[in-house]
């Protein structure tokens, strides 16, 4: 409340100075035990080390950062106030569609532009995995409004289904893909059923619990999952039976020999990239179509008001379960791809941080917005990637980005809470929820 009142008048330099000094003081308080002092292990016993230089830098940076930030904010506010009479440049659906096609074109062209740069394509593949996971979770969180913090469980189920089907029965990627999807969907229903009555934060915590239970079971049930050591040498997917290997097995042709190309390790990387691109696009088409079906409209209605849905005679149980099952299935598909791409999976890939990342992508993107998921996945994967040189700061930057983007745009980068279909434009009053 107070923030709003202060923001009404432009600040004098003295006020800004006072504000920044206060921030610096808080930074000093917070910094003393964490930055200023640290304990180091010296010959078995801890000793305290002081880092007052670093503390001074930390406080100084906080002061300067706050001072400059406030100054810029005031400038921006002043300009925005001057402009407020001018109509706001709304992002029309058309603009979003144009951006969408542009992003699609760029992602198709990417391997052609960087056909020799393995790092770029690998990173892009990672982004696309998150995009696909984000689109899958978007069904549960963005459309049906069910907060799921254990989505990684379904991702793990998909990955482990493929890994186990291969190691026990020798199934290939394409054979395992639908089975793993079905398996994940079954898990979605099994896990979704008991918690249908819960809503909001309770649901979040329980799904988080489920995610952790699955991970703990994977770690401890060594006969099934090989425990923390994970499952290795999972085969890569093939292109209609053409493997991407230098020396394919007897009687089969590799991709390179079939097309008469020189063997190159990049073929496989690019193939994997296009594969996840196709999978992600299929997901997108699937979800966009579902949104227009009765079930999709039911999800959106459920998100807005569960009681009203019940009063209208909707079977809330089935609607919720279908959202859980479809979200889980898409997560399972992504898991199969993940297992095939890595060639090795272990419970360590399926921690809570992963769930939080996927949820963050959905929420930061703007719940329910398909393009927003892409933008958020780009930001959240690339931002830590940019800081790769200081890799220990990656997760720190990730956490900071989550807080900052949320504070800056609480409804996400591209907010879309509008119903996908309206019966009648004129009847639609109060579109703002």
């Amino acid at each position, binding site marked *: 409340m107070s923030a709003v009142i202060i923001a009404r008048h432009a600040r004098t330099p003295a006020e800004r100075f006072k504000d920044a000094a206060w921030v610096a003081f808080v930074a000093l308080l917070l910094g*003393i035990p964490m930055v200023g002092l640290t304990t180091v292990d010296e010959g078995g016993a801890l000793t305290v080390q002081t880092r007052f230089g670093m503390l001074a830098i930390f406080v100084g940076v906080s002061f300067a950062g706050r001072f400059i930030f406030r100054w810029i904010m005031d400038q921006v506010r002043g300009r925005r106030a001057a402009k407020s009479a001018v109509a706001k440049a709304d992002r029309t659906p058309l603009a979003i569609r144009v951006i969408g096609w542009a992003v699609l074109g760029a992602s198709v062209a990417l391997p052609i532009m960087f056909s020799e740069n393995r790092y770029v394509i690998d990173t892009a593949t990672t982004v696309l995995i998150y995009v696909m996971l984000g689109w899958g979770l978007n069904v549960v969180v963005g459309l049906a409004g069910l907060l799921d913090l254990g989505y990684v469980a379904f991702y793990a189920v998909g990955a482990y289904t493929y890994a186990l089907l291969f190691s026990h029965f020798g199934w290939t990627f394409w054979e395992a893909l639908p089975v793993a999807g079905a398996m994940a969907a079954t898990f979605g229903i099994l896990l979704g059923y008991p918690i249908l009555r819960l809503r909001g934060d309770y649901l979040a915590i329980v799904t988080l619990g489920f995610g952790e239970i699955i991970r703990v079971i994977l770690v401890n049930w060594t006969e099934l999952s090989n425990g923390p050591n994970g499952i290795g040498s999972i085969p890569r997917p093939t292109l209609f039976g053409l493997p991407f290997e230098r020396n394919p097995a007897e009687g089969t042709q590799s991709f390179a020999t079939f097309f008469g190309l020189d063997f190159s390790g990049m073929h496989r990387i690019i193939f994997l990239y296009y594969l996840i691109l196709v999978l992600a696009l299929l997901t997108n088409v699937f979800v966009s179509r579902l949104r227009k079906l009765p079930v999709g409209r039911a999800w959106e209605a459920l998100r807005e008001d569960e*009681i009203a849905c019940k009063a209208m005679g909707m079977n809330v149980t089935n609607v919720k379960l279908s959202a859980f099952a479809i979200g889980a299935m898409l997560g399972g598909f992504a898991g199969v791809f993940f297992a095939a791409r890595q060639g090795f999976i272990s419970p360590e890939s399926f921690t809570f941080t992963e769930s939080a990342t996927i949820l963050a992508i959905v929420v930061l993107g703007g719940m329910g917005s398909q393009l927003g998921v892409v933008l958020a996945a780009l930001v959240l994967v690339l931002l830590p990637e940019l800081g790769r040189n200081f890799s220990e700061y990656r997760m720190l930057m990730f956490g*900071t980005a989550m807080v900052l983007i949320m504070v800056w745009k609480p*409804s996400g980068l591209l907010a879309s809470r509008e119903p996908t279909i309206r019966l009648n434009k004129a009847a639609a009053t109060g579109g703002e929820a």
Partner: protein
Amino acid sequence: MAYALQQLINGLTLGAVYGLIAIGYTMVYGIIGMINFAHGDIFMVSAFIAVTAFTLLAAFDITSLPLALTAVLITAIFFTSAYGWAVERMAYRPLRGSTRLAPLISAIGMSIFLQNMVQLTQGARVKPIPPVIEGGIELWRTADFTVQVSWTQIMIVLVTVVLMVAFTWLITQTAFGRQQRACEQDSTMTALLGINVDRTISATFMLGAALAAVAGVMVTVYYGVVDFFIGFVAGIKAFTAAVLGGIGSLPGAMLGGLIIGLIEAFWAAYLSPEYKDVATFAILILVLMFRPSGLLGRPEVEKV
């Protein structure tokens, strides 16, 4: 029998610590209706502050135990409250009145931030400190097992009881407690009555952090090791305790903490230590399925 008694003692100690953390969750949930995901990490920060403080005291040759403990407790409470305040101010206050999900995401972000900040500034390795309080009482000696209560355990339970009494007094008898409960019921109306809601919420976060700080010091003394990851699991368990007791209810949080501590101790002792975290989650899920308002909570009535 003797073995079971020992587990009872261990479980009570553990439960007291969970209860202290759970109060932070329950109060914050009561007043702004959000899960303070970073609360477990606030607890972790306090454990690190305690390690630094103990080491500093040892370096200055302060060996008087009561003096050292008091000093460490005060230091940890002071700095941890500052962290609680800062987290609320930076990550939650700007989001007040926005969607329900937004503060949850920024809370998760804050939790990741705190964990990694501590890992960076204090190191990723486990920090051991020499035992602070040694010895204990032998309660019962049988042929093959001796039941022991260590002084540390007695101290943890005593401090928890004292804090609970003080805290109940604070919430039920003082002006601040009234304001706090008023904000829980209806923050708009409370603001109309001239109470600074923002300040009350900040104070609630600081109080929760202070209790977490005490828990952090206790855990440091009890286990003697600290690492940057203890916050996550402890946080989840304390949250389970808060839900089990009925979120929003202070005695409920304590009761829930004790039950979770006991279940964990007995489960680890008699069933399987690997699956003790699964036990906690299973309880959480069962409670929410069959009694979502918890043991001592009021059922949430939804008005249309």
